[in-house]
């Protein structure tokens, strides 16, 4: 229960704080825009200075002048667009026996044709631990953590994307395979289990390699990206000129706020390379590059559209035709999807597990146990009390 009355005084202070924070952000953003202009002419020197400083915090790698902008190319027709998404029911530590489930969607549209779309989802129910037992003592003991399930879901999404792209590809027809979220698997680090992390990253890298070998260009879409890699680079530039006093000049800013100042609807930024260390396990041609783009918000002309981050492997970024293809598809998708790629919304709709479905899943487990004369699923007292609160 939330005591809204008690909250009202705090909300006053919140408003004041936000007004100050936003004024501060506007000042810093103006400085960042000026820095972007100023460093454009000597971007190679800034790139080299950033490289000398090491990798924390993450700094954008430059491939061209960072203030470059490109208008949206039209999406060709016919065109094959592929997308997948995944969702999961994590192993619930309040419920025994332990099991989990991953639901992965597979979507493929042959735009400009009357061919039947692929609209599918595949469910993977795991109750025997997982296939990582030899790499993880936890998994060996039948304990699969939420982090492992998330990593397996990401892997399944990418595998489904590869398989669906193979199925949907047509000779002579351009194709882009669109993933949701980042292709940089930084979240795998931090499992505190080096062998397991290496195995998961290795598998992911192998999938990215297959995309390249088979000439199927992947791209991923990050909505509301929280990265500050270009901001950090501009910080390097300021320090090159003004010394350490400018350490905090751009503190708290995000790349997307900067590009909201510079990109018109449909335009994309220059491409940058990611310095994330996790990618050292990716083949060099598969290391991730990214650009920012202002996507159209659809029919609402008052909405300027959001700044999205689009990630592609280096081999895609190096090929102007493939890069344009990914950019053109994203813009056309967002036009149709009211500011978010339509095909990713569809992939989400087919993958999502809603609360009643989750409840039904547990009921089905209960029934399966009952039919075998086994004791019912054990729910902790805490879980039971949350489900049926007493008066």
């Amino acid at each position: 229960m939330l005591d809204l009355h008690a909250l009202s005084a705090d909300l006053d202070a919140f408003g004041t704080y936000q007004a100050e924070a936003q004024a501060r952000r506007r000042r810093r953003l103006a400085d960042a825009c000026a820095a972007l202009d100023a460093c454009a002419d000597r971007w190679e020197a800034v790139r080299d200075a950033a490289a000398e400083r090491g990798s924390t915090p993450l700094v954008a790698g430059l491939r061209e002048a960072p203030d470059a902008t490109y208008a949206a190319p039209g999406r060709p027709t016919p065109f094959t667009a592929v997308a997948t998404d995944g969702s999961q029911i994590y192993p619930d530590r309040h419920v025994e026996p332990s099991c989990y489930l991953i639901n992965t969607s597979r979507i493929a549209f042959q735009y400009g044709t009357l061919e039947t779309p692929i609209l599918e989802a595949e469910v993977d129910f795991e109750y025997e631990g997982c296939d990582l037992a030899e790499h993880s003592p936890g998994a060996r003991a039948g304990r699969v953590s939420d982090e492992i399930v998330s990593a397996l879901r990401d892997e399944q999404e990418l595998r489904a994307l590869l398989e669906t792209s193979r199925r949907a590809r047509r000779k002579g027809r351009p194709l882009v395979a669109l993933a949701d979220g980042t292709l940089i698997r930084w979240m795998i680090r931090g499992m505190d289990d080096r062998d397991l992390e290496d195995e998961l990253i290795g598998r992911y890298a192998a999938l990215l390699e297959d995309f390249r070998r088979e000439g199927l260009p992947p791209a991923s879409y990050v909505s509301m990206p929280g990265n500050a890699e270009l901001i950090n680079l501009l910080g390097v530039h300021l320090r090159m000129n003004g010394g350490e006093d400018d350490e905090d000049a751009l503190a708290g800013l995000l790349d997307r706020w900067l590009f909201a100042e510079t990109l018109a609807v449909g335009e994309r930024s220059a491409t940058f390379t990611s310095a994330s260390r996790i990618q050292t396990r990716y083949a060099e041609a598969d290391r991730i590059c990214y650009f920012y783009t202002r996507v159209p918000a659809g029919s609402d002309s008052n909405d300027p559209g959001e700044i999205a981050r689009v990630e592609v492997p280096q081999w895609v970024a190096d090929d102007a035709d493939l890069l344009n293809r990914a950019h053109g598809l994203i813009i056309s998708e967002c036009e149709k999807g009211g500011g978010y790629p339509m095909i990713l919304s569809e992939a989400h709709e087919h993958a999502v597990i809603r609360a009643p479905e989750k409840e039904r899943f547990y009921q089905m487990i209960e029934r399966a146990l009952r039919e075998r004369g086994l004791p019912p699923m054990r729910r902790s007292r805490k879980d039971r009390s949350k489900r049926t609160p007493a008066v």
Partner: protein
Amino acid sequence: MPEATAEIIEASTRAFTAEVHDGEEAPAFGSWVEVEQADTGHTLYGLVSHVEMGAREPGRQARAFGQSREELQRERPQVMALLRTIFRAQVLAYRTDPDDGGTIRQTLPPRLPSIHDFVRCCAPEAVRTLGAPYDFLRTLVQDPDPAVPTDDLLVAVLRQVRAAHGKAHGEERSEDALVEAGRALSRLLDDDHERLQSILRRVE
């Protein structure tokens, strides 16, 4: 035997709802459909009393895009794929197992159809067997589906009667069958001539 056009997704002794299979056309309002009951050997006959098209998944609603059907198929291919047509049929008669005489009974069957049973459109010869004494009209008039305009359904039924008889025996026999059905209906409507005339006018 005509191909299955639909599959039952809700069933009761009195009526069933069926989802039309992808690529198949929905049966016409007021037309006869049949369901073979594997366990009893009966064939159930239902009259299509309501047809509806909408989003396949609850929680997703169709919206206007201002594009032609072909433009939608080319640029929003999921939209047409996510639509479905369902229809409701009132069960009005059944035929017993051919080994058991294959008799037509114009009354409700002893058992309801099963969910996932296939539904087919009736061929004209099946419609002709659902003729005199037109007892099923009594069920339609006296216990109508409250969500359906009964007289419009009666108009559609009479047109079917005429068409089914006309196909096999020509114009004259089809008019005879229509007159006979009209007489049965007149008795049911308690000689409410105005209502009967209104129905017959619309059959023309």
